[in-house]
C-alpha cells in the first residue's frame, strides 16, 4: 500500500513537471540559474548512487583489492570512458564481477 502511494506521489510530481510549461506557456519562465543547475542533476545524483555501491561493502569503506565490485566497477568505468557503449559497459562489468567472485 505504502509503495503504491510513493509511486503515485512521485508519478504525479513527474507528470506535473512534464505538463508545466505545455499548459502554462507564456505565464512561466525558467530562471537561468535553475537551467544551469538542472544540467548537473543526472551526473551528480547517479554518481552519488553508484560510488557507494563500489566502495562500501558490508557498511564500511573497502578500498582493498579484495573488493570485487570496486575492481569490476573500475573496469566498467574504463570501458564506458573509452567506448561510450552502454551494453558493452554492463557486459564487461558483470563478466568481470563473476570472474572475480569465482576466483575468490
Amino acid at each position, binding site marked *: 500500500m505504502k509503495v503504491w502511494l510513493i509511486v503515485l506521489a512521485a508519478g504525479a*510530481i513527474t507528470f506535473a513537471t512534464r505538463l508545466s510549461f505545455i499548459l502554462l506557456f507564456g505565464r512561466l519562465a525558467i530562471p537561468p540559474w535553475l537551467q544551469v543547475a538542472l544540467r548537473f542533476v*543526472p551526473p551528480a545524483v547517479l554518481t552519488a548512487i*553508484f560510488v557507494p555501491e563500489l566502495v562500501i561493502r558490508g557498511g564500511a569503506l573497502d578500498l582493498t583489492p579484495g573488493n570485487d565490485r570496486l575492481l569490476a566497477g573500475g573496469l566498467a568505468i574504463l570501458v564506458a570512458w573509452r567506448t561510450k557503449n552502454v551494453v558493452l559497459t554492463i557486459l564487461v562489468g558483470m563478466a568481470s564481477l563473476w570472474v572475480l567472485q569465482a576466483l575468490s
Partner: protein
Amino acid sequence: MKSPRAEFLAGLKAVLPIVVGDIPFGLIYGFIALEAGLSPAASQGMSSILFAGSAQFVSAQLFGLSAPASVIIATASVINLRHLLYSASVAPYLQGLPSRWKWLLAYLLTDEAYAVTITRYQEGEDHSQAHWFFLASGALLWASWQLSTAIGLFLGAMVPESWSLDFTVALTFIALVVPALRDRAAFGAAAVAGLVSVLAFGLPFKLGLFIAALAGILIGVGLEVRR
C-alpha cells in the same frame, strides 16, 4: 502539408533505434525492482505511472535500502526536474492543440521522445501535424518500456541471487554518467557528488545521497559560472 498518417509513421521510424537501445534498460529495471523487494505489480506500476527510466532505477534502489517515503519521492522528483526544460522547449509548438492532446503528450514526454520530437519541430517549416509524430514516438517508447519491464520481471524471478544482478544498477549508472563527463564542470559535479556520498554514507534516512547530489550540483554550477 504532411498527413497525420505520414507524421505518425515518421515518428515510429525515427524512434525505433532508440526503442531497441532501451530494451536492456527495461529488462534490467525488471530484475532490480524484484531484487529490491518490490512486488511485480508495483514494479510494473512504476513503469506505467512514473514512466522515467533513471528515476525508476533510483527509486527501486532506495526501496531496497528501506529509505523513507519522503526521501524516495524527493529523489525521484529531483531526478525528473529536467523535464521542466523539455516541457518549456516543446510548449510553443503545442499551443494550438486541444487540452486532451497536451495532457497526453505531456505524459509521453520522456528524454527519448523529446530528443526525436524537438528535432522534428526544429527541422521543418510545417508543424501542423507534427503532434502525430510526437504521439507515435512517445507511444512506441511507452509500449516497449512496459513490455521490456514485464519480460524483466518474468526472467528476473528465475535468476538466483548468486548472480549478483543488483550490480547492473551501478553499471548502468556508470554507462550513463561517464561518457557524459565531457567538460570540467560536469566532471567536478560527478567527482564531488561521489566523494561526498562516501563521506556522508552513514547519515540516517539515506540523506547522504541527497547531500552528495546537492554538493555535486553546486560545484557544477560554480565551475560553469567561473568559466
